[in-house]
């Protein structure tokens, strides 16, 4: 039957004269996939904006680290920081932490979606699974970035200047990190059916990732085992360049710089900032690819 035969007037039960609207769904196209990506992304934002509690709770831990731990330990650490405020030192790590937590929670919503059935509505839609996964990852990244920006606004409180270039560079870095963490979370969520299991797994992954990343200690002169673990942690490659950017804008002694911001090395070779960002992005792309394969394999 052609679309034209479907134009009979439609009786409305309420008596209001609704205009006739018979819809024809177009064949799969790039435009269709872009619309799908966009609406899945938008849904993440709508849900986040309605969840005020989550906005606040995901900031609690970063704030604890920055203001409670940073302030409390600062006197203890003052001998080793060459006059630099400990809070300034941990600030890049705390920024990454805010992003890490929010991104993981965004990915967790996928497990909720499965548990409450909504995932099915997306899975039966005539769009590529890759569009759905990509939309989800972009949505999670956006939301996580929003939390990062809140922490970014606090820079002045811990002695980090509001230099536009610095803010922009840090923003881009945290965007990459947010995307990678969300993609990682979505990859894990594809295999997990229950929210409790997902939370357990992410706790097991997130805390080591955070502590090993050098967010709360300089990454040089560590024991060999810790150095190895540190270099294997993807977070390392987000925290280190972010700290370098921050320290570039600080007036501190060369000795302080050397002690607090030694930079990540591979067998003695200093890994450049762009390569570090590239490592984070590459891991994100790999996780995204695995997640897409996992979701496409499902019926």
């Amino acid at each position, binding site marked *: 039957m052609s679309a034209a035969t479907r134009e009979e007037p439609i009786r409305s039960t309420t008596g209001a004269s609704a205009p006739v609207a018979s*819809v024809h769904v177009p064949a799969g196209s790039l435009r269709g996939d872009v619309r799908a990506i966009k609406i899945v992304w938008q849904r993440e934002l709508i849900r986040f904006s309605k969840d005020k509690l989550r906005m606040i709770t995901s900031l609690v831990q970063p704030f604890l680290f920055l203001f409670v731990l940073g302030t409390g330990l600062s006197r203890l650490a003052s001998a080793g920081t060459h006059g630099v405020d400990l809070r300034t030192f941990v600030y890049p790590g705390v920024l990454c932490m805010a992003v890490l937590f929010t991104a993981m929670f965004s990915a967790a919503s996928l497990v909720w979606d499965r548990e409450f059935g909504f995932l099915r509505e997306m899975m039966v839609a005539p769009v590529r699974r890759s569009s759905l996964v990509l939309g989800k990852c972009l949505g999670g990244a956006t939301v996580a970035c929003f939390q990062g920006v809140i922490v970014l606004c606090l820079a002045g409180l811990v002695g980090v200047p509001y230099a536009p270039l610095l803010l922009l560079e840090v923003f881009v870095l945290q965007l990459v990190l947010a995307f990678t963490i969300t993609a990682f979370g979505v990859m894990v969520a594809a295999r997990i059916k229950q929210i409790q299991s997902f939370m357990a797994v992410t706790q097991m992954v997130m805390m080591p990732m955070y502590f090993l990343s050098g967010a709360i200690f300089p990454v040089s002169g560590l024991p060999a085992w810790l150095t190895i673990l540190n270099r294997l942690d993807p977070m390392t490659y987000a925290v280190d360049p972010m700290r370098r950017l921050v320290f570039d804008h600080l007036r501190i002694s060369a000795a302080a710089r050397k002690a607090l911001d030694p930079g990540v090395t591979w067998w003695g070779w200093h890994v450049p900032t762009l390569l570090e960002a590239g490592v984070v992005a590459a891991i994100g792309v790999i996780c995204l690819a695995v997640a897409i394969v996992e979701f496409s394999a499902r019926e």
Partner: protein
Amino acid sequence: MSERAGGGVALAAPAAAASISVRGLTKRYGEVEAVRGIDFEVPAGEIFGFLGPNGAGKSTTISMLCTLVKPTSGTATVAGFDVNHARDAVRRNIGLVFQDTTLDTYLTAEQNMRLHAELYGVERELVGPRMRQVLEMVGLWERRRSAVATFSGGMKRRLEIARGLMHSPRVLFLDEPTVGLDPQTRSSIWTYIRELKAAEDITIFLTTHYMDEAEYCQRIAIMDKGVIVVLDTPDALKASVGHDRVTLQTDDDDAAIAEIAERFQITAQHSEGAVILGVPSGEHFVPRLFAQLGVPIRSVSVSRPSLDDVFMSYTGTTIRDAEASAGEQRRAATAPFRRSR
């Protein structure tokens, strides 16, 4: 408005009489054959009911027709597209309403509808009018800005039906559309389904295990243990049974069944605490029964054949008995999830 240039026109399926056509469809899960080579056709514009106890293979069949489950063997076309080879084309032309809710309860009704429209690529200028039309049809237009979390079970089901219609599917699949709803809501859902049938050129394929609802279908297929045991109109099915149902309450059911078999050569069955037997003319049989049966009778009723009798005569059991244990356990296990959101 539907005269559009571009990709949409190419999608129009060949004008086939059959909206759904199934040949030798089989699904095997390991050793278990859930669907065993079924064949049937549903002409365009029909309300077609799939009837049977839980575990009969209804949901597996509907899942195969909706491209959610790959058939082990056999073929099926829906709206002119092969479910094995044109998955996305099938999906674009069908609407789905599942037993369990698939709404995002954080979003409003309108946001759920728009999300669906975007996923299905509904033309932008049509999204508003179409949404209004289908939401008015199910009486939810006034509530479109409310979060779905505030909706009752019946409202959610209506919203799901409206959403399933958002992209003007040619076939609407309703898997147990009224399960878990109170009788009033059930009847209002049926009102919407019949109005929908009158308003739009659409084929409706539904599964149910409520016998009274099967009466609303133009044709029904009874499925049991993975096969279609019979397929016809409700009236023809009832006529095919050809006899009245006599239901007895006695002091000793087993003795009564034995005695009925001996004296009248009629096989009576024990079901739901009563003795049930089929006879050509109930009102003439009952006086003879009273005169000849030695077992005291406490009550007796005679009824014209219903779809329950049809089901019983084709499967040898009532639909409630057939699904009693397994079905109830399954529903009890999933009920908390359904209610919670």
